[in-house]
């Protein structure tokens, strides 16, 4: 079971083979859970979405066609479930960049910008920096978030993402570009909330 390709395993799953299915789950549970977590920024929901993704893989095994990449198909299911979840909670909750660092402790420390630093990116350090970055990602509009998460955090190619999102590669690229720019300006905003800097993109163009 460990040497088969995902496509081969799926063919077995289509015949009802649970062992093949378990192997697929083992192989892909980590990246899919990580993907869901980055999309949702909520560990419990991420786990739910990841599990639901695999349940769907099994239940809808018949509609998988071997011509399609299994990973792409899997991500598409996970992506749709994550977006569904985001829509469900859209009006209830927004992620705030300056929320307490530990969600379990509302009175806990908040992110505090250091005084002066060479660049915003370098000035946020270690774990705190990762947390702030993740929170910035979680605060992006969904379409930029999914592009950024898949490209920059999950390491998928533009081509794969284009198939998952069902849009042209050029669209994925511009979303990634804009997403990165948004993250940068959000980082700037929390680093220096009172002195907005001119955006580099607005400077002289030839």
């Amino acid at each position, binding site marked *: 079971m460990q040497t088969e390709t995902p496509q081969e395993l799926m063919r077995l799953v289509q015949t009802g083979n649970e062992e093949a299915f378990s192997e697929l789950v083992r192989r892909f549970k980590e990246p899919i859970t990580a993907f869901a977590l980055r999309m949702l920024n909520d560990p419990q929901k*991420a786990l739910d979405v990841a599990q639901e993704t695999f349940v769907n893989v099994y239940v809808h095994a018949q509609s998988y066609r071997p011509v399609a990449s299994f990973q792409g198909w899997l991500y598409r299911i996970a992506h749709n479930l994550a977006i569904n979840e985001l829509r469900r909670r859209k009006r209830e909750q927004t992620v705030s960049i300056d929320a307490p660092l530990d969600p379990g402790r509302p009175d806990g420390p908040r992110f505090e910008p250091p005084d002066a630093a060479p660049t915003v990116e370098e000035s946020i350090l270690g774990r705190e920096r990762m947390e702030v970055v993740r929170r910035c990602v979680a605060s992006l509009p969904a379409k930029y978030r999914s592009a950024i998460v898949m490209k920059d955090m999950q390491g998928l190619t533009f081509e794969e993402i284009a198939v998952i999102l069902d849009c042209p590669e050029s669209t994925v690229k511009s979303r990634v570009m804009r997403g990165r*720019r948004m993250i940068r300006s959000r980082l700037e905003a929390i680093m220096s909330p009172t002195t907005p800097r001119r955006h*580099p993109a607005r400077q002289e163009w030839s």
Partner: protein
Amino acid sequence: MMSCRQVRKNLVDLVDGVLAADGRDRMEEHLRACVPCAAERDATSRVASMLAAAGAVASGPAVTGPGFEQRVLASVRARGNAPAPADGILVRFPQRWQLPVIRRPAPLQAAAAAAIMVLAGVVAVLYGGFTASRDAGPAIASYAPDREAGSWDDADVDAAYEMSDLDLVMPAREVPFSLRQDLVGVRSGRIPATTYVLEPAPDESAVMRASF
């Protein structure tokens, strides 16, 4: 020399390292001379590596233990332990002209016939030789197109509508997301779905193709 606009457009590929040597050289030439573009390149590449670093860190409490497979299997078994027939889910194809349609659940006999059609349809679509099947019964759900999304030429939709006897004809991109979700089949069996893929033919008319 490339213009700033061209450079900005390709910056993401440059940072990604996927540009061919020729394109890369022409980009570098511009970046050496253009401070704002170079700054943008540096910024986007810094953000990209920050994101990669954040992505590489273990994902915290959601990291999946060995119970994960068991829970998934339990959940699958709770739903009846059998993969659903292929007619309950829609796999979207990356074609521009895809039209999801919801149809009335067929009576049992018809369902068996439909299942055969389904297989035929899937095979036919794979080999590109199947044209529209329009006898799958009347649609129950009709959805008004979301006109705000209307990047679509209405004439395209009208033409498609004229050609078909479907109760719902709309471009996939205009389908409200909640409906798409149903069609994508995240909730199996709740709504029987039929996919029609509409593709532009060489003479610019539309050709219906049915999948399952």
